[in-house]
């Protein structure tokens, strides 16, 4: 059911988000245009030896599914590790969908020096009910076929995860969380650029918007993974800190807060510094006069509200981009605030529910 067909039979959305540090799962039931979360699962697991899909991760996914319970008619949404995804903006003449896909595939294949046969690409389409952007710029996401096959064989074979209806690049889950209408009203449709700085566990990404559309996205070379690595060098319980970060708990409650807090502050500052570099590099690449004048809004987000606020605070403290005001990006009206620690997996849930129909999350 990868397309839009037969979705009348999907009454449940099974969402699975996994990375090297945490696995989360949600089971959402859809009835009468309402989406209700039936079950939720979250497990932190930091023990891995550098594999991009660890054995612990696969085992945890298996446990998550055993807890959640699956059904053959579940609409399944899974995240695909963003580290294995490359994105590119290509300018192409007007072509049919399949021709456009092939043309971009060949072009990206040349650019990234990856054989066409080992390349899977997907051109980003405007969501249902939204107008596609004008012009011939196309944002495409790609991965190696071998990476995709390895991921699916492990996840479907070892963890017994049901075949996914949607396999989404992990970073896009954040875009599902935000209230597009409020963003438009706040001026996202401006001719100037808006930036969303996003810090995740395994990666960080900078989303760039213009005229109300996703214009581009760039990877920021600093993430919570580096923070966790720095903490691991100290004699503290990494699992506990990661749990606190994922849960959005008060770090001050930890017994070794004096050791942790400076590392956190330094990491956040380093991350924001890298983000500022990325923004500046992007604006320089646009070859416009007064690059900072091309910025309409700056947003910061992360795994949960707590981390987002910490990053916003640090951005103010370090006067990010010459002290430009950091705005709070509005979450969807029906976002279940009590499930803030499940924010990222909720992004995937929104994606699945959106595919089935226009539904509202209820408590």
């Amino acid at each position, binding site marked *: 059911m990868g397309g839009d067909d037969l979705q009348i039979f999907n009454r449940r959305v099974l969402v699975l988000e996994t990375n090297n540090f945490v696995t989360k799962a949600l089971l959402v039931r859809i009835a009468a245009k309402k989406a209700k979360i039936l079950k939720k699962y979250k497990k932190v697991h930091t023990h891995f030896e550098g594999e991009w899909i660890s054995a612990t991760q696969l085992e945890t996914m298996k446990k998550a599914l055993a807890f959640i319970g699956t059904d*053959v008619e579940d609409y399944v949404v899974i995240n695909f590790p963003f580290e294995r995804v490359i994105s590119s903006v290509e300018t192409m003449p007007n072509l049919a969908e399949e021709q456009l896909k092939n043309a971009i595939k060949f072009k990206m294949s040349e650019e990234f020096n990856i054989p066409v046969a080992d390349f*899977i690409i997907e051109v*980003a389409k*405007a969501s249902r009910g939204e107008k596609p952007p004008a012009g011939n710029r196309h*944002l495409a996401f790609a991965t190696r076929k071998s990476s995709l096959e390895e991921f699916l064989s492990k996840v479907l074979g070892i963890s017994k995860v049901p075949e996914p209806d949607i396999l989404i690049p992990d970073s896009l889950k954040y875009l599902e969380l935000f209230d597009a209408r409020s963003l438009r009203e706040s001026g996202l449709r401006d001719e100037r650029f808006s930036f969303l700085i996003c810090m995740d566990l395994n990666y960080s990404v900078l989303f760039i918007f213009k005229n109300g559309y996703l214009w581009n996205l760039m990877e920021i070379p600093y993430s919570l993974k580096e923070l966790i690595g720095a903490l691991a060098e100290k004699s503290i319980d990494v699992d506990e800190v990661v749990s606190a970060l994922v849960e959005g708990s008060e770090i001050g409650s930890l017994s070794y807060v004096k050791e942790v807090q400076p590392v956190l502050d330094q990491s956040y500052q380093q991350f924001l510094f890298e983000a500022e570099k990325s923004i500046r590099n992007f604006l320089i690449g646009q070859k416009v006069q007064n690059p900072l004048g091309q910025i309409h809004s700056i947003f910061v987000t992360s795994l949960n509200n707590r981390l987002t606020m910490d990053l916003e605070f640090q951005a103010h403290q370090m006067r990010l981009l010459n002290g430009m005001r950091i705005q709070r990006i509005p979450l969807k009206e029906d976002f279940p605030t009590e499930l803030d620690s499940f924010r990222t997996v909720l992004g995937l849930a929104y994606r699945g529910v959106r595919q089935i129909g226009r539904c509202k999350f209820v408590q």
Partner: protein
Amino acid sequence: MVDVNLYSKKKPRLKLLTVLILTGILVLPVAAFRITLWSLQMVEFNRLQSQYPIAAREMQSFRSSEFAAARQRLDQQERNLSAMVTRVRAETAKVEKDLVYAGTVQRVFSSFSDSFSQTGNGEKVFLNRMAVSRGSTMDMSYYDIPFAEESTQTLSLSFDFHQSFMESLLKTFPAPDADAQEINFLFLNALYNQLSLDLKGM
């Protein structure tokens, strides 16, 4: 925002229960139609039952499962009846022919008898031969001998019986094949008549 799906190969799979529900949904209109039709039939039947109570009792005793057998029986009976009608028709035609034949033959005898009754006092009639071949001919030969006049003792030359009989026959047989010969010998004057009547078509 944007829709991206790196895996779009999943084939649709449905649970047995869903398939059953779907089948039910598809069958439901047909079932509803049949039920509606049946209800309308029952309403109409009840109306007819109240209108024709005697016929209704017969209709109620009739079971649809017996319909085929009943129809077979009716067909067989129809075939039998048809054969019987054909036989009766043939028999009737045959009887009609027999009656005509009997009437014709009887008229010959009646003519013979009437003529003899009318003329018997003055004539003797000797029936020499009579043979009836049904559907073919009726052959007969007779002698007509008139008595001599008592007063004159002379031979009478009048064959009244023969004339009367032939006249009577002409009414039934327009052209009888008759060969009449007079015989005069001494005081005997007689008429020998050989008659052949066509009975073909009788």
